[in-house]
């Protein structure tokens, strides 16, 4: 690789400076502001929070760090339930995505190259179609006079429509449905690089297909599984749209809580505190994802 130091430190610096500064200003600084606001009081003003720093008298500056918002979150069981429920929903959805998505990714990776491309295209297509519209599709399928109920009733399987919409069940279906491509694609990328001759060697040595899968394929695809799972789990914890459209009022997800606090209650400081806690909760998973990605690309090189 050419030593680009020859371009001079200014040349290289300029290239990365623009995106770096942009992200610093529009990605990192906002988090600091969220942190700051999570410590302030609600106010009937625009914007609806009291400033953090206040001049008291002529020469002194008072910083008011108000822990009330956090205390409120920890004492009100609603929020704790919301966090716990979000984690549970995200975890179970990830599991479901794995159960459905792994065989699909596996099958695509083992298909003939021409078929493989078509199948990949079919997986990518929903990904490019609006999430909102795809979730909307399930409203039409799951509601009382929706497609599924109509078919089941006309077949005589049931006599009264099943309540599927506005239940946790609908929310799970929605999340698994929307995030499935996010699991399949990185998993496929990992499986595609596998040396299939390892399986043939194993079978040659007397290993049964299922054993070979369990002992060879599964461990080797570990990075793909982790990457795909993180791509489902982490955003699912904070998911808003799907609980809002498919889950009922009992579908308590932290993303929805944040939205409601912000838009419905105009409680910006509380919403900020929720955001900070959610962030803290997810950072370990994000760092895990980063390390899996680093390992995968190091292995590839």
């Amino acid at each position: 690789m050419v030593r680009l130091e020859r371009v001079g430190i200014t040349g290289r610096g300029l290239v990365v400076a623009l995106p770096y500064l942009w992200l610093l200003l529009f990605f990192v600084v906002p988090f600091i502001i969220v942190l700051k606001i999570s410590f302030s009081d609600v106010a009937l003003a625009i914007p609806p929070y009291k400033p953090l720093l206040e001049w008291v008298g002529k020469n002194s500056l008072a910083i008011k760090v108000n822990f009330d918002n956090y205390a409120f979150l920890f004492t009100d069981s609603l929020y704790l339930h919301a966090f716990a429920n979000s984690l549970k929903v995200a975890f179970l959805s990830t599991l479901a995505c794995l159960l459905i998505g792994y065989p699909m990714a596996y099958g695509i990776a083992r298909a003939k190259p021409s078929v493989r491309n078509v199948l990949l295209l079919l997986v990518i297509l929903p990904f490019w179609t609006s999430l909102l519209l795809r979730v909307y599709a399930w409203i039409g399928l799951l509601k009382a006079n929706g497609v599924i109920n109509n078919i089941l009733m006309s077949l005589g399987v049931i006599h009264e429509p099943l309540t599927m919409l506005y239940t946790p069940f609908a929310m799970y279906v929605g999340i698994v449905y929307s995030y499935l491509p996010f699991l399949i694609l990185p998993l496929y990328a990992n499986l595609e690089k596998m040396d299939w001759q390892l399986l043939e060697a194993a079978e040659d040595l007397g290993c049964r297909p299922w054993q070979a899968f369990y002992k060879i394929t599964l461990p080797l695809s570990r990075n793909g599984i982790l990457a795909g799972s993180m791509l489902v789990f982490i955003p699912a914890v904070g998911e808003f749209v799907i609980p809002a459209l498919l889950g009922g009022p009992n579908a308590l997800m932290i993303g929805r809580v944040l939205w409601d606090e912000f838009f419905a209650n105009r409680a910006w400081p509380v919403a900020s505190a929720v955001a900070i806690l959610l962030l803290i909760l997810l950072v370990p998973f994000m760092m895990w994802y980063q390390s899996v990605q680093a390992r995968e690309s190091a292995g590839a090189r």
Partner: protein
Amino acid sequence: MNYRSSFFILSCIALGFAFLYVPILSMVVFSFNASKLVTVWDAANSPTLKWYYSLLNNEEILDAAWISLKVAVINASGSVILGTLAGFGLARFRQFRGRFTLNAMTTAPLVMPEVITGLSLLLLFVALEQLIGWPAGRGITTMTIAHMTFSMAYVTVIINSRLSSFDTALEEAAMDLGARPVKVFFVITLPIIFPAILSGWLLAFTLSWDDLVISSFTSGPGSSTLPMVVFSKVRLGVSPEINVLATLTLTVVTAMIVGVSLWMARRARLDQAAA
């Protein structure tokens, strides 16, 4: 390699794709249903195009679509520039101050829940407005900035990955023949990685076009995007015009994907044979 897959795998694939596509296809089918109830098929009057006419005359939706289009185009173009710079830096410069930070900042948005990014950006804009008077109120500008921030992360990943598998000997050969590094980038590297840049543009466009949460946080009065309008309609239940919108979207996306992949396949053959 043995391409036969077991019956189990084949049925999983079939069922999996059925799961993915039945909802989409049902939306398409019911877009032609005359009944306002959408899912109750009105055999007497269907199939019909009446909802198509209705949608295309719906001012609210058309205005929102126009705003979405503007934001998406500016976002895609800006993200491609930022993402290419970042991707190039990460792929080509082995060491520089802030490399770890830049890497973290360009991968975090990929997994961050949108409510967090949306909230944080809105608070930033409010604080900035208080501090320096810009941006004055929320609207298309703030939305575009917000979109660009998360879109560029995706573009960075795409460009970084493409440049990592790029034969650097091509760049070295160009320099060896007398071209300075900046010239090499524009005359050699850019044309060759163009498909990746195009993918990045399309991805950024789509992410912006479909975005709901971040747009809701960072938009202002009179700058509702298409997803925001759809969301407010859909919260109340089904609506036949939304089915039409879904069908139209699906058609455009399919045409685009098929077209682009055919074009990329042709170019990939060229690249493979040469590099």
